[in-house]
């Protein structure tokens, strides 16, 4: 994995699920974030993980923290998948696989879809990596509790008045 704890994550520029050009820093809006690289809608593991992630959005929405999903699905596919999940967070589309090689996150064992290797980064508002998770094997992914703990740790560091 190219990016680990303490590294600056690149400010991705990709279309969102509506096709609108976005940057990662723009969709994070100065908040901590969980950045999820996902294979795509077709993968049962991704469907399972994103369903659970969608349950966590109820906490993220009141906690000044963001969820961002990146996959190689086209924006219109992401929009349909997002609607089916009931998600209210942003999907970014790298259907052209522009960032995939730069990030070194190609899942080499899937020669049909050439997707992202499932990977999660928890990020500070300035895009520094707090923690990276290799989710190629499902149990390598952060649990919802892991994400809560990471958001707590980042928020403790960046939010005024967050006492230990």
């Amino acid at each position, binding site marked *: 994995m190219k990016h680990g704890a303490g590294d600056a994550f690149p400010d991705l520029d990709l279309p969102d699920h509506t096709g*609108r050009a976005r940057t990662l820093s723009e969709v994070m809006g100065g908040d901590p974030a969980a950045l999820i690289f996902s294979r795509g809608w077709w993968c049962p593991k991704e469907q399972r993980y994103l369903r659970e992630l969608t349950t966590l959005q109820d906490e993220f929405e009141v*906690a000044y923290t963001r969820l961002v999903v990146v996959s190689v699905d086209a924006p219109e596919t992401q929009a349909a998948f997002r609607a089916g999940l*009931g998600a209210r967070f942003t999907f970014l589309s790298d259907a052209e696989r522009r960032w995939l090689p730069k990030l070194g996150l190609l899942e080499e064992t899937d020669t049909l879809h050439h997707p992202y290797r499932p990977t999660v980064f928890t990020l500070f508002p300035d895009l520094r990596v707090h923690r990276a998770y290799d989710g190629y094997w499902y149990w390598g992914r952060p649990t919802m509790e892991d994400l809560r703990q990471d958001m707590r740790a980042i928020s403790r560091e960046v939010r005024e008045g967050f006492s230990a």
Partner: protein
Amino acid sequence: MTDDLPAGAAHLAFDGDDLHAGAGPGRPFMIDGRCLAGEPVRGAFAHVCALADPEAGLEYDHPEVQQVRRDALAWWIPMLGDSLICITTLALDEARYGGAITVTRGPFDFAQDPFARIFAGTLVRTDLLCEVAPPAGPVIERYAGVAWPGGSFG
């Protein structure tokens, strides 16, 4: 309504028929200031879900006011697509919601506007408001009192 604007906020007034930059004429609101900060889009369609009645307001924390913001993120903004110019709620003060405005390039099926569930919508032509990237979600809370989706702690 408070005269002191939080950073990132701006005044916009609605007289029941038209929008006016500033605190009047009409009922003054605080909006996401980015909506007035750029090059205005001429002839835009603004669906103003607010009333001129100065008593019409609810707490931002009211469950239905939270829910319409969730609906905006989930399906209203995606449905508007490229037609969307900007969207802002209308704050009365640091705690109270007075409505919302969805601004588009052309006429739309505004009957579906989730914000109209709270205060009925009026369609207004306007040259005042500019393009702002839609909120990314999932945050529905406000930042230091700025009308959602404006503001940030960054």
